[in-house]
C-alpha cells in the first residue's frame, strides 16, 4: 500500500493538538495547547516563538518523536490525508526522512562525530531508497552540489568536527533533501550562524521551495527572518498560537500585543518602542497561568477580563486570526 499518495488536499493538518508532560504531585504541564494548523503543498509557514514557547515540541509532535514521559494528550496530526495516530511504528519510521524531513539547529552537535559526511548522507539514502553503492555516491555528490558545498568530492570524507558551522548546516540540509521529501521542518536552523551564512542558507531554502513545491514549516525565534519568504506567519506563546496571518497582513496590521512586542524591537518609532518594551519584566520563565490569558502577566494592555478569561482564536480579517480580548486596532 503506497503511502506516498498525491492529493490535492493539504499536506499537513494539525487539529486541536495538545502535548503534556506529567508532573509529580500536580497537574500535567501542557507545552502545547489547542494547536490548529493547515498547510497546503508548496506553502511556507513561519512559526515565531521564544524559548519555552513549545516550538521544538511542535516539530517533534509532527514527527511523532515527543520525548517520554511527554505524550500527545489531545488532537491529531494528519499528514497527506492519513492520521498519524493510526499508523504503525514502522510506517512512521519510513516516513521520517523520506516524506517529512527536519533541518535542525546546532548541526555539528547532532551529526554523528564518528562518521564522515558521505557516510551520513549515504545512510539515509540506503535505508529509504533502494540504491546501490555507486548510485548512492552519485546522488550524494549531487546533493552536496545542490546545497552549494564547494569541492564536494573532498567533503565526502570530512568528519563533522572538521566542518564550519555554515558547512555543517548545509550538510544537514543535504540530508533533509536526500529523498526529496514533500514536507520540511526547519527548527531554528539559522540561529547561531553568521549573518552572511544565514542569508545564504535562507536563499537556498527559498530556491528549494520554489523549484520543487516542497512545503516548509519554518520555526524561528527571530521574527525578522519570516519577512523573507514566508507565505503565512504564526506566533507561538506559552504553547498556543496567539496570532496567524498572511505575511503582508501580519506585518502591516498585527493584532496581538505579543506579536507587536516582537515587532517593536525593530520599530523605528522611539515612542512606540518605549510603550511596548518599557514595562516588560522577565516573568515568562514560570509555567503558564492557569486561568486567563497566559500573556496577561507581561502585557501592557492587560485588564481584569484578561486575567480571568482565556481568550479564543478569533478571525479578525479573512485568514487573519488572533487570540486576544482586546486586539490592537489600527
Amino acid at each position, binding site marked *: 500500500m503506497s503511502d506516498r499518495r498525491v492529493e490535492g488536499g493539504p499536506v499537513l493538518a494539525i487539529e486541536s493538538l495538545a502535548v503534556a*508532560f*506529567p*508532573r*509529580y*504531585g*500536580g497537574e*500535567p504541564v501542557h507545552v502545547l495547547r489547542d494547536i490548529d494548523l493547515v498547510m497546503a503543498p508548496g506553502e511556507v509557514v513561519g512559526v515565531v516563538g521564544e524559548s519555552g514557547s513549545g516550538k521544538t515540541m511542535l516539530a517533534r509532535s509532527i514527527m511523532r518523536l515527543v520525548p*517520554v*514521559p*511527554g505524550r500527545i494528550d489531545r488532537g491529531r496530526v494528519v499528514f497527506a490525508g492519513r492520521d498519524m495516530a493510526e499508523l504503525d511504528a514502522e510506517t512512521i519510521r519510513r516516513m521520517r526522512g523520506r516524506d517529512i524531513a527536519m533541518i535542525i539547529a546546532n548541526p555539528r552537535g547532532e551529526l554523528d562525530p564518528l562518521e564522515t559526511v558521505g557516510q551520513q548522507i549515504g545512510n539515509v539514502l540506503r535505508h529509504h531508497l533502494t540504491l546501490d553503492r555507486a548510485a548512492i555516491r552519485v546522488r550524494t555528490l549531487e546533493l552536496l552540489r545542490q546545497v552549494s558545498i564547494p569541492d564536494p568530492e573532498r567533503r565526502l570524507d570530512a568528519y563533522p568536527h572538521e566542518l564550519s558551522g555554515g558547512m555543517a548546516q548545509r550538510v544537514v540540509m543535504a540530508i533533509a533533501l536526500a529523498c526529496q521529501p514533500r514536507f520540511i521542518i526547519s527548527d531554528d536552523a539559522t540561529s547561531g550562524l553568521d549573518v552572511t551564512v544565514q542569508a545564504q542558507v535562507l536563499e537556498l531554502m527559498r530556491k528549494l521551495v520554489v523549484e520543487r513545491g516542497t512545503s516548509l514549516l519554518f520555526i524561528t525565534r527571530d521574527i525578522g527572518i519570516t519577512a523573507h519568504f514566508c507565505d503565512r506567519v504564526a506566533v507561538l506563546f506559552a504553547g498556543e498560537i496567539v496570532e496567524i496571518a498572511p505575511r503582508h497582513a501580519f506585518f502591516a496590521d498585527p493584532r496581538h500585543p505579543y506579536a507587536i512586542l516582537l515587532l517593536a524591537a525593530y520599530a523605528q518609532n522611539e515612542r512606540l518602542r518605549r510603550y511596548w518594551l518599557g514595562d516588560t519584566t522577565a516573568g515568562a520563565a514560570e509555567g503558564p497561568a492557569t486561568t486567563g490569558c497566559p500573556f496577561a502577566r507581561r502585557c501592557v494592555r492587560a485588564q481584569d477580563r484578561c486575567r480571568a478569561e482565556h481568550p479564543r482564536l478569533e478571525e479578525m480579517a479573512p485568514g487573519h486570526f488572533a487570540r486576544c480580548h482586546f486586539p490592537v486596532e489600527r
Partner: protein
Amino acid sequence: MAQRTSATRIAEPEPPAAAGGSGRLAFFLALLRARPSYALGYIIVGVVVLLAVLAPWVAPFDPVRASPADFLKPPGWPYLMGTDATGMDIFSRVIHAPRIDLAIALAGTLISAVVGSALGAAAGYYQTQRGVGAFASGFVMRAADVLQAFPVFVFAIAVVAVLGQSLQSIVIAVAFVNTPIYLRLMRSQVLAIRRMRYVEAAYIAGVSDLQILTRHVVTNAMAPILAQLSVNIGWAILLTAALSFIGAGVEAPTPEWGSMIAMGYQSIITGHWWPSIFPGLALALTVFGFALIGSSVEVLADPARRRALAGELEARRRLRLQARAAGAGA
C-alpha cells in the same frame, strides 16, 4: 542583587516538583515503591547496621568460644549455620562480624572522603595561581598519580605491614587507598565551578574565597560524593575481608567475614562447605546492599534523572488512581 539570585538558583539543587519537607519524603517513598531493588538495598543495610549494634544480645552463642567437641557440625539445631573446625558457632560469628567490618569500612571511607575532598578542593583552587599554592597543588596531584599507579592490593598490605597489624592500621590502609578518588572528584568539581561566570562575579563583588568555596563547591559537589561514598563503603568492606583472608587484616579469632572464609578454606575441599559459604554470602549481600543504595543516591542526586523519575512516578500514580476508579465503578 544579581549575585544573590544567581547564586541561589544554581547552588541549590532543584527540589522535586512537590516542594516542602513532607514532599521529599513522599517522593523518596514513591521511589522505593517503584524500584523495589533500592528498597531491598536499604533493608539489607538496615539489617546489617542493626546486627552490628545488637549482635551481643541476638547471638545465641559467644562468638569466640570454641567447643572442640562440636567441631564441623553441619547446619541444624542448635547451630543454625553449623560450626567451624574449632567448634565456634558460625551463625553467632556471622552476625557479630558487621561490628568490625562496618566500623573499619565507615571509618576508613569517611577519613578518605574528608581528607581527599579537602586536598582536592585546595588543589583545584590553587591550581593556576602562582607561588607556593600552585606548587603544592601540583605536588599533590603527582603524588596521587603515583599512589594510583601502585598495585592497590599490594599497597594496602604494605601499609598494614609497616604500621603493624591492628584495626587502626587497616583503617589507615583503607583510607589511603580511597583518598585519590575523592581528591580527583573534588578537584574536577572545583575546576568546573571556577569556570562558571557567576563565581567570577562573586569574586569581583568581594565575597571572600572561603565563602565562595564552601557555598558553591560544597553544594554542587555533594551529590556525586555521596553516591561515591555508598559504593565505597561496600568496597571498603571487601578490602577489609580480603586483607583478613590473606592474614594481613583482622586476626582470628575475632569474628570477621574474610578471616572466617580463610579459616574454612581447607574444609571446603573435604565437603564441609558451611564455614566458608555463609560468611561469604553475608559479605556479598552486604556489599550488594550498599551498591543498591549507591544507585538510588545517584538517581536522587542528579536533577535531570530526578525530573525524569518524577514524570514516571506521576504517570504510575495516575494509572493506579484510574485502575482504582475503574474497579470501584465496576
